[in-house]
């Protein structure tokens, strides 16, 4: 009979949006572990209403507009027995929060010789492409890639946001989630299993292929999927990789794919100077140079601020046509 107990439960799936999966993951973690709390500004808005109605005020903390300090409060709470999810809302506010994230959360485990741990999750939402102008349109994860001690994830599917957010909450290190809000309405199959975990540090091959490796990050993934479909009709086979975790990066998966295809296109919406594509390109140049048949191509936002006018902003972020053109240019 013990075999029956150990049998995994039926892996049922339901259709839901990325945003619903995100909220469901938080509800399930709040229910599973009373050390989990949620902190943030205007917490009842943008899906948080379900959290507020379900849990009492000791679990859901509505924050004053004090991003620097409430980030530090989350870190202090994490160091003394809680597992906070700190909602930093718009990613441009990360700069105010960056001192405690970098100087305290990322460093204290190391600086104390392992005496403390900092199990805190930061949610940062990237809202570009919506005429919000430069102070509300940032995609600031590259700055944080340069910080040792952090883990950084940017899932692109409803199942992955559920599974990776849960892994983040259960992790003993600080984890930053960069959510591309363009993905919030995207629907997908999500496991109902409350212990559905996607491991931090593992990439996923979204589509197997043999001609060109395309690595797409965050919101660029949807465009890359569409591009891969179009290219397949023209007989070009794309291997599409979603790193899912940006730090620590699963280079083994990317390296193995490039060894097979010999061609690499990197697509992301962060500015091109010292972003994740730069790092992947550098690592391929150092350790996978012999595999390359053609130069690496990077498609990113240029080194210019995000403008307000739609007439200008439409030229900032790489689109499907550019991905298709970049791939064809390597054939």
């Amino acid at each position, binding site marked *: 009979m013990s075999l029956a107990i150990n049998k995994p439960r039926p892996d049922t799936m339901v259709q839901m949006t990325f945003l619903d999966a995100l909220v469901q993951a938080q509800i399930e973690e709040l229910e599973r572990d009373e050390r989990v*709390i949620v902190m943030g500004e205007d917490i009842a808005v943008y899906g948080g209403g379900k959290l507020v109605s379900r849990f009492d005020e*000791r*679990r859901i*903390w509505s*924050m*004053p507009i*004090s991003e*620097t*300090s*409430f*980030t*530090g*409060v*989350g*870190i*202090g*709470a*994490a*160091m*003394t*027995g*809680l597992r906070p999810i700190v909602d930093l809302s718009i990613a441009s506010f990360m700069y105010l929060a960056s*001192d*405690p994230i970098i*100087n*305290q959360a990322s460093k*204290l*485990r*190391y*600086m*104390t*010789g*392992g*005496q*403390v*741990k900092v199990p805190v999750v930061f949610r940062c939402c990237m809202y570009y492409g919506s005429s919000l102008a430069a102070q509300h349109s940032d995609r600031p994860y590259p700055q944080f890639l340069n910080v*040792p*001690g952090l*883990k950084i994830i940017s899932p692109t599917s409803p199942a992955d946001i559920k599974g990776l957010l849960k892994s983040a909450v259960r*992790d*003993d*290190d600080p984890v930053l989630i960069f959510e591309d809000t363009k993905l919030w309405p995207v629907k997908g199959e999500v496991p109902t299993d409350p212990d559905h975990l996607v491991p*931090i*540090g593992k990439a996923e091959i979204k589509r197997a292929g043999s001609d060109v490796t395309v690595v797409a990050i965050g919101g660029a993934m949807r465009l890359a999927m569409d591009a891969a479909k179009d290219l397949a009709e023209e007989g070009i086979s794309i291997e599409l990789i979603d790193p899912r975790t940006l730090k*620590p*990066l699963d*280079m083994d998966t990317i390296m193995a794919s490039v060894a097979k295809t010999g061609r690499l296109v990197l697509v992301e919406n962060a500015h091109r100077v010292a972003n994740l594509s730069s790092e992947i390109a550098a*690592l391929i140049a*150092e*350790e996978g140079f012999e595999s390359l048949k053609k130069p690496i191509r990077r498609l990113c936002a240029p080194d210019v601020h995000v403008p307000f006018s739609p007439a200008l902003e439409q030229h900032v972020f790489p689109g499907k046509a550019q991905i298709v053109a970049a791939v064809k240019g390597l054939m």
Partner: protein
Amino acid sequence: MSLTKGRDSETYRRMLRIRKFEEEGTRLYKAGKIPGAFHASIGQEGTIVGACIALCDSDAMTGTHRSHGHPIGKGAELKALMAELMGKATGICKGRGGSMHLADNSVGIIGESAIVGGGIPLATGCGLSAKVRQTDQVCLCFFGDGAVNQGTFHESLNMASLWKLPVIYLCENNGYAITTSIARSHGQPNIAKRAEAYGMPGIAVDGQDVREVYKATSEAVARARRGDGPTLIEAKTYRFDEHQVGLFIPGTPYRHAEEVETNKKLRDPLLLFRRALLDTSFSEAELHEIESSVVAEVRDAIQFAEASPFPPASALYDYMYSNPILYPPQGATSAV
């Protein structure tokens, strides 16, 4: 209010431990045995120990870059602290923190922050955690007069007041943020008065009088445990040494030599407390016994630290992440 003899004895012992530990540390620093920067809290022992002695062992604490006194005040053993100053593998932070970060978690310290004002939100988070966990733990938050002008002070005290968090904000006001005096940096020089704006009690005490600091902190701790919220205590103290041992500051002195000498002579918290103890319940012999045992403790700590090994290069990546399978990253071996 008079402290009990046992507490007086422990208070004097901890103050003296800080003094002797730092006198010897200064000597070793000048001799090149301690790397980095060395910020002594000599002169501020009354403030540190007076506040710490009002806590329970299970209470939490945060401190500053002037970090040596805080763990000692909270009751830490000296050996691992001295080894840390020397960058040894047996150091309290395994040689990864050093002089500005002597955090000993075994006595409740969650961090000694060398980012001025950086510990204030952490202490506030500890207060929030105590409230969520429904314990009677309080957090003592040390910071200096310079940190009062950081945004984290304003933001954190507002939140602590809003949610009545069990935090004691203790400002070690030694009059100078490195070389910048209160007069040159505070539009309103009365730090305790700032509490009123946040709706919490603000109390100014003589930080050189350990009993006065103890009394004010005890009341703040009781208030916090009752669920009545935070208190801001401004302890007016004085740093006897330079901001950092051996620091050369060019130009016109920011404080007069006579000011330093007068404080050393008339406002030394150890001399003041020793005199008070002799006037009340202690004999010269009893104090001698404490003094010689502290000297021996510091000597043992130095012996332990000097005999300890440095961490090996292979340990560079230790304590980075909770799950080391992910580390070191690609390229790490070629980069080192």
